[in-house]
């Protein structure tokens, strides 16, 4: 039995990250000769069920009214045991990173973070991941089954739907446990916007911007490009923008079609978060800045002079 379970959060829907996890799970199950099962944390709505139905054998919907890790872990452990999981895959979101190692422990398995490639090796799973802030890549073999992996989901292609096959849908009421932790307030600062991890185009600012005001210019540029705004750790640590914008080893790992780095020197920690970007372009005064070693194209000029002209030209072309 070599079943693969993908764990998705209902609140995120079938976003690009969920598609990547599904694709990775589908190929791993095929390689192992096993079956793909989906577990949705939170009640799976019709859209998510419709998206997953042609991909998985079963969809187990854990109808939590509120995410609570202890209750979630108990139920997930039970479901993974019943489905005889050989591998359990998560995305790279906050809750997944919190649950995955604890689930691995409860199942007697092994976990690994931020996988960018899955390589079945006999009855074990090898996982490639970036280490040392993206300066190196390690291949790690998980010694205990099940293999629990959270994935840099944009690094994986979406799954191929199977024709004429629909998943069996199961609804599981989670086991009631005394809540040891309780969420008493939640604030979504990016409500209504696409998650950075799902953005096709990102305009990102760094320490070289010198303060919070230039981010208003970046927002205006992003609006023209229909892009999301992001930032380096230095900019977030300075309080110029919220931590949810932070890209890098210490922030979000993104994989846009275009990553436009403005006044970002390109510390390895930042590069670790954008290594899956298909195209990187940069605006920087220093031609020797490390960011340019990762760029398709760049401009060596002061961003203060470039951004107004660039906005003008892009707006004219778009209209």
């Amino acid at each position, binding site marked *: 039995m070599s079943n693969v379970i993908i764990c998705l959060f209902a609140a995120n829907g079938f976003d690009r990250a969920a598609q990547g996890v599904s694709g990775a799970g589908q190929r791993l199950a095929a390689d192992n000769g096993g079956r793909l099962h989906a577990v949705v944390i939170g009640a799976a709505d019709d859209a998510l069920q419709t998206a997953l139905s042609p991909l998985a054998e079963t969809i187990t919907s854990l109808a939590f009214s509120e995410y609570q*890790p*202890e209750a979630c872990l108990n139920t997930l452990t039970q479901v993974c045991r019943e489905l005889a999981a050989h591998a359990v895959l998560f995305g790279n979101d*906050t*809750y997944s*990173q*919190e649950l995955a*190692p604890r689930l691995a*422990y409860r199942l007697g398995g*092994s976990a*690994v*973070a*931020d996988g960018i490639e899955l390589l079945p090796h006999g009855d074990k799973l090898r996982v490639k*991941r*970036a*280490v*040392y*802030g993206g*300066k*190196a*890549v*390690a*291949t*790690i*073999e998980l*010694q*205990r089954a099940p293999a629990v992996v959270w994935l840099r989901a944009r690094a994986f292609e979406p799954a191929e739907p199977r024709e004429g096959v629909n998943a069996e849908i199961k609804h599981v009421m989670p086991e009631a446990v005394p809540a040891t*932790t*309780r*969420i*008493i307030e939640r604030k*979504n*600062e990016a409500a209504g916007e696409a998650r950075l991890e799902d953005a096709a185009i990102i305009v990102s600012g760094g320490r070289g911007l010198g303060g919070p005001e230039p981010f208003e210019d970046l927002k205006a540029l992003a609006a023209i*490009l229909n892009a999301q705004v992001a930032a380096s750790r230095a900019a*977030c*640590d*300075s*309080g110029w923008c*919220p*931590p*949810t914008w932070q890209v890098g080893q*210490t922030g979000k790992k993104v994989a846009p079609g*275009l990553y436009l780095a403005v006044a970002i020197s390109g*510390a*390895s*920690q930042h590069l670790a978060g954008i290594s899956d970007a298909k195209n*990187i*372009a*940069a605006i920087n005064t220093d031609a020797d800045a*490390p960011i340019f*070693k*990762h760029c*398709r*194209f760049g*401009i*060596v000029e002061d961003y203060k*002079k*470039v951004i107004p002209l*660039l906005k003008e*030209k*892009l707006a004219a072309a778009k209209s």
Partner: protein
Amino acid sequence: MNIVVCLKQILDPLAPAREFRVDADKKEAVRGSASLVTNIFCENALETALQFKEQLGAGKITALSFGPESAEDSLRKALAMKADAAALVVNDGHPHPDPLAVAQVLAAAIGKLGIFDIVMVGRESGDWGVGQTAGLLAEVLGVPSVSFVDHIETVDGKLRLKRQTDNGFEIVEAAPPLVVSITNDEHNVPRIPKTRDVMMSFRQPLTRFTLDELGVDAAAIRAGGDYYEVIELSIPVKDVNCEFVNGDSLEQKVEQFAQRVLAITQSL
């Protein structure tokens, strides 16, 4: 409130990438001229603990590290930042013990240190970026965990933890004992210790544990690889050549840049 802050000493992540080398046989980075530093998220954890203690007006913070002898430097720095005590578990075995082994050793050391209310760890390390210590430690200790916290306070005698999420933040109410992983924000940037405190830190006692003293399965930890094994470590080859836009004027350069941006965005 008894707080244990776990600190990991790592190769300085800010060392230039051009000097970075790996030993493919040992499957680890070559130190070269790079400094050894405390992992930044661990320092964020210590800063968060110090601020929490200041708010409470009482408490004890113990800095704990599992690593080579050189990890004493990280602990001395923690004492200089005003941690109350420090303990080092000397790793005389595998240089990169797997995440479960780390959690088992830390849990055993915490057991030796006595009663704890909160264990704080950095959310991940700047070298291997494992990101599992908090979760595994919570499981081994049998207590809850909350991840990606950047601030802790008490309200009506209960702990309130502000945690970062993918889209914003949450306030989580919890009761000790528990394990939290700490992430960075603008409020928990590590303080710089005073010169006098740095000097004083070298006079303070530092508890040492050996693996054998902790009663863990030291042989398994020394062997490594029971949870996971590093098969290969290499430096990826980048084949990107940056094309700098050129032109006689800024206008021309920006025009070219805009055209390239448009070409890509239209193809997406």
